[in-house]
């Protein structure tokens, strides 16, 4: 399901477009940015499932779960990470 060939046909979104409770699968982490490197170093990688758990009162940070691991990302940090919906119906 995480095959690159499939990604083409799915709606690619930024992590900031997720709504609380929504899940997606990571398809692109910008590896040349500090945020990208930081995510790889914390064991986050393409193909992992991500859930947006909640958003802090002032709109940032965003509380994600990458597979199991809960992590806080600021809005601008999350914006550069791309994902596609696990289930295309969620896009609606």
């Amino acid at each position, binding site marked *: 399901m995480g095959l690159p060939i499939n990604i083409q046909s799915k709606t690619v979104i930024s992590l900031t477009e997720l709504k609380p409770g929504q899940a997606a699968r990571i398809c692109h982490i910008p590896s040349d940015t*500090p*945020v990208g*490197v*930081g*995510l*790889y*170093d*914390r*064991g*986050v*990688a393409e193909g992992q499932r991500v859930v947006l*758990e*909640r958003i*802090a*009162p*002032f*709109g*940032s*940070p965003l*509380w994600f*779960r990458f*597979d*199991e*691991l*809960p*992590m*806080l*990302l*600021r809005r601008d*940090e999350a914006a550069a990470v791309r994902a596609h919906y696990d289930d295309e119906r969620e896009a609606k």
Partner: protein
Amino acid sequence: MSSAVLRIALFGNPNCGKTSLFNALTGHRQRVGNYAGVTVERRSGTVRLGQRTVEVIDLPGSYGLTNQSPEALIAQRELREGEIDALVFVVDATLLRQSLVHFSAMADLALPMVLCLNMADQAQASGQELDLGQLERELGVPVIETVGHRRLGVEQLKNALLRATAPRSVGQDIAAILARALRTPAQRSVFAASQRIDRIVAHRIYGWPIFLLLMYGIFWLAFAVGEIPMGWIEAGIARLSATIAAHWSVATLPQLRSLILDGVIAGVGGVLVFVPNIVLLFLALALLEDSGYLARASYLLDAVMQRFGLPGKGFIPLVTGFGCSVPGIMATRLLEDERDRKLTMFVLPLMSCGARLPIWMLLVPAFFPRQWQATALFGIYSLGIALALLLPRLLRRTLLKGPPSELLMVLPPYRRPTLRQLSHKVSERAWLYLKKAGTVILAISIVMWFISSFPAQLPQRPAQESSIAQSGRQHQLARDRLANSFAGKLGRSIEPLFAPAGYDWRIVTALIGAFAAKEVFVSQMSIVYAIDGADEDNRPLREKLRARYGLPTALSLIVFLLIATPCMATLAMTRREAGSWRWALFQFFGLTALGYVLAVLTFQLSRIVLGG
């Protein structure tokens, strides 16, 4: 290689329990210092391994070696140049996949290695089953399981170190290797219970009240409860001083007597008096940190604090600063980023500390009509807060340039803090304070005693015999002694410098004394005005001040005392935490320059406005 091991290093991610494992391994045989010039601590200890004593270095926790944080750079340097003979790669057994992404970088170091799966109890409780033998064969290094905070697996670790080998180069296959070694994956998430707690703690509505309540609890514990043992310490010091004074006649060696009583004992008292605050505050902070709550506080605070160029957790040391800057500076250790720590440290003295309250209590009623007093006090605190929040952005644009640190904060599961870990952390902080800051504070207080007592022919009766002797002559003697001392002379000679701020030599002399501790300003003022009883009701002093100075001077003085010349304990603590005198002196002179400029502006502007 068993006999060749001389130095071993522990490395791992933050939150993997590496330091508690280090404590379990080395017991109390450890040393804590700072890497030069940075806020990062260097921990080392020793352990008996076979027939020999081996040095163990607890490298700063970092997500791998390749990122640009000071922690990673230090770890890298130690591993490459520190003549490390073997490496213990500590990983959180519940997050194997996430932690082992760094395995191949570790393998590239070509050091004999032991892979240590820490928090193995939690991994087992989650239902995860590993084939350790399989993992050992594929990685080419001994693999062991430990529970650092319960001291389990320490013997296995020691034995494994005796057979440590350089790992096989595994390349990118680590995920596949792990998959083969995993007999049963975790059945229950270690985060399941935390998720339930977070639904309340990170709740849109309940989140903030819970946080504020916890903050209030910390503040109350550290400063209200801390007041009690502080009273004991003060009483004990006073009793000691009185006992010596009673048995040591003024006639014999009066200078030495004064040094012991007013220099050394007063100085030791000045050091010890912070210990209850530090112990209680660090107990509270260790509870917050070890339980996992602290990361949740970041979730609530980050957006607010970010606007001011500080990370979310920066809130906690800043609030602590209202009590006292010294534990506040120590609390900057909660922050992950080096520059964040230095910035927060820098602005901390701007939070009006408890020692400045007696000053406000003297000046505000002296110069403000009753209906304006509350507003004035509120204004003082607000000015400090405003500056503390505005300066970081300015400094980031100038001195501490660079992109802001990333948040990317992993939220550890909630854990029950262990008594052993708490007591270790607290006693370590208290000891570091006494050893590293206390000695500096004591030395400076003796210097301060010297410059305010010499050169002066000691009066026939010692000036500060006690408050029982209340003759006017006594106070005049004290006043003359201070006026003729180096401090008094210095005050007089730099008087012109402070004339634009509206101060005379009396104020300047009292300001010099306030470097020892802020509240000393009040007692110094009462000495230069030869008035008794600065502590309780200082009405006569207020009247004298009101008679001599106008409101512009008072405003300017308040501004100066709030911003400029952090006290010597603050200076000593910044030096210890920042790892260098440079940052401490920059803080001291930077804030003093800022305070001076703002005080002059305040004086001049208010003179125009008030027509003085």
